[in-house]
């Protein structure tokens, strides 16, 4: 991977006009396709794709900077960046060379918007419980099942669908269209404009060449590596949210006069600010460290990404709570940027693995192999089979 993020893209994201547009999207409850296309033309969706496939080949650390900028203004658009990058990664890493060459340029340029179709009503992080089937009949895949809360599922051109083929976990890229029914999910605080959809595949078909990874091995490998990247980017977004909240808090504390002094002169306020600043800075540094581990393909990257997501989502919660306390009533109104950041922080604690799932992964890594502990580590995403056997050996 070489090259920084495209300069024109960074300039557009740093422009105040971008923040204003993001506010309008949140109010309207939808990021419009036209706005996505416009930013895609500047390279927003091709950051993680190599230059040979019409992306910018931007290194992960520089990609996380873009995620910070986007998430600070629009948590909803940020969720598109995360899912789109996960789909690009799945195709780049696990699809056949033909599929890679055919689809990566489409994804990188935004001609094809892709959603990550993993979650079901009763199956989120536990892919062993997925009920969607991807049956193979000759050279055709037939997909049946319902996926929930897909970011940008309402306007996606294709879906990376996870399910099972002959009882084994599998994955395929399925186009929108015949056999694919899209319904609008109720508006979700924090992702108001993310075009969340419930998508039902009712015997939808795709060529067998659209399979990503092989049945039986496709799910754990594809999901796990996608989630590692997703966690890095959610963590980066959470840092962006934390930084934005911290700026609001510090600006307010420095200027709000109260009884002859400013809020920022008060020791208790300074304590709140210091804690929020430290949490935010620690998360920012950890995110960069994680990006480097992923780029270097360190074996520890998956667990490090889980740690980064946990740390950063907590930093966002801390910083938004601090800003909320300092700004008082002014920050509680629906239209205030803080309300959006606050809701985004709550979302960040849930998506790509809730806090408790991440704690489990991190602790399992810590305890693995120590006498007296259960040997089996929990899967972050995908047990290879139902976890009802007895694997504890120590």
């Amino acid at each position, binding site marked *: 991977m070489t090259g920084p993020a495209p300069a024109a893209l960074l300039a557009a994201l740093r422009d105040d006009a971008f923040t204003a547009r993001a506010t309008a999207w949140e109010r309207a409850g939808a990021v419009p396709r036209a706005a996505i296309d416009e930013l895609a033309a500047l390279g927003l969706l091709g950051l993680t794709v190599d230059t040979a496939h019409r992306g910018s080949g931007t290194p992960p650390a520089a990609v996380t900077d873009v995620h910070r900028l986007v998430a600070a203004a629009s948590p909803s658009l940020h969720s598109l960046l995360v899912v789109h990058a996960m789909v690009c990664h799945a195709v780049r890493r*696990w699809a*056949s*060379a033909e599929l890679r060459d055919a689809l990566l340029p489409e994804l990188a340029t935004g001609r094809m918007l892709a959603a990550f179709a993993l979650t079901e009503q009763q199956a989120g992080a536990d892919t062993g419980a997925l009920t969607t089937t991807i049956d193979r009949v000759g050279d055709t895949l037939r997909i049946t099942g319902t996926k929930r809360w897909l970011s940008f599922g309402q306007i996606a051109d294709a879906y990376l669908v996870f399910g099972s083929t002959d009882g084994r976990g599998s994955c395929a890229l399925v186009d929108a269209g015949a056999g694919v029914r899209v319904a609008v999910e109720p508006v979700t605080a924090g992702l108001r404009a993310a075009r969340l959809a419930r998508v039902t595949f009712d015997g939808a078909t795709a060529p067998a060449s659209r399979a990503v990874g092989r049945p039986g091995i496709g799910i754990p490998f594809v999901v796990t590596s996608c989630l590692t990247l997703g966690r890095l980017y959610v963590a980066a977004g959470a840092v962006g949210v934390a930084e934005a909240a911290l700026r609001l808090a510090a600006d307010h504390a420095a200027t709000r006069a109260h009884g002859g002094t400013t809020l920022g002169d008060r020791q208790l306020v300074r304590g709140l600010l210091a804690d929020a600043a430290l949490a935010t800075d620690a998360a920012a540094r950890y995110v960069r460290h994680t990006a480097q581990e992923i780029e270097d393909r360190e074996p520890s*990257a*998956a667990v490090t990404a889980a740690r980064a997501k946990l740390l950063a989502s907590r930093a966002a919660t801390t910083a938004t709570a601090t800003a909320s306390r300092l700004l008082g009533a002014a920050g509680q109104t629906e239209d205030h940027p803080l309300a959006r950041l606050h809701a985004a922080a709550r979302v960040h604690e849930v998506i790509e693995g809730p806090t408790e799932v991440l704690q489990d992964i991190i602790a*399992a890594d810590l305890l693995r*192999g120590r006498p007296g502990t259960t040997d089996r580590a*929990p899967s972050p995403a995908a047990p290879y089979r139902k976890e009802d*056997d007895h*694997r504890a050996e120590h």
Partner: protein
Amino acid sequence: MAAPQTTTPRPHTPEEVTATVRQFISRLSGRTAIEDDRPLISDGVLDSVAAVQMVDFVERTFDVEIADEDLELANFDSIRGLAGLVNRRLAAS
């Protein structure tokens, strides 16, 4: 011992590959003694995070590319399977 037949030395002998893989799996699983044929994934010795780590480790350590057709469980489910995959990839490169 016979002299090497080729002028370009192979980067890793099959024995070295197996030893390196064994060491990595041992570190990954936190166990010191795992039989070369012990199922790693289907027996729950390693989880799915570890499975992905194996692919990254192999590609980085031996400078080989794991292709789509290599992603069969048998290639990752034991020390012998993984070492065999690496050796086949090295021989093909």
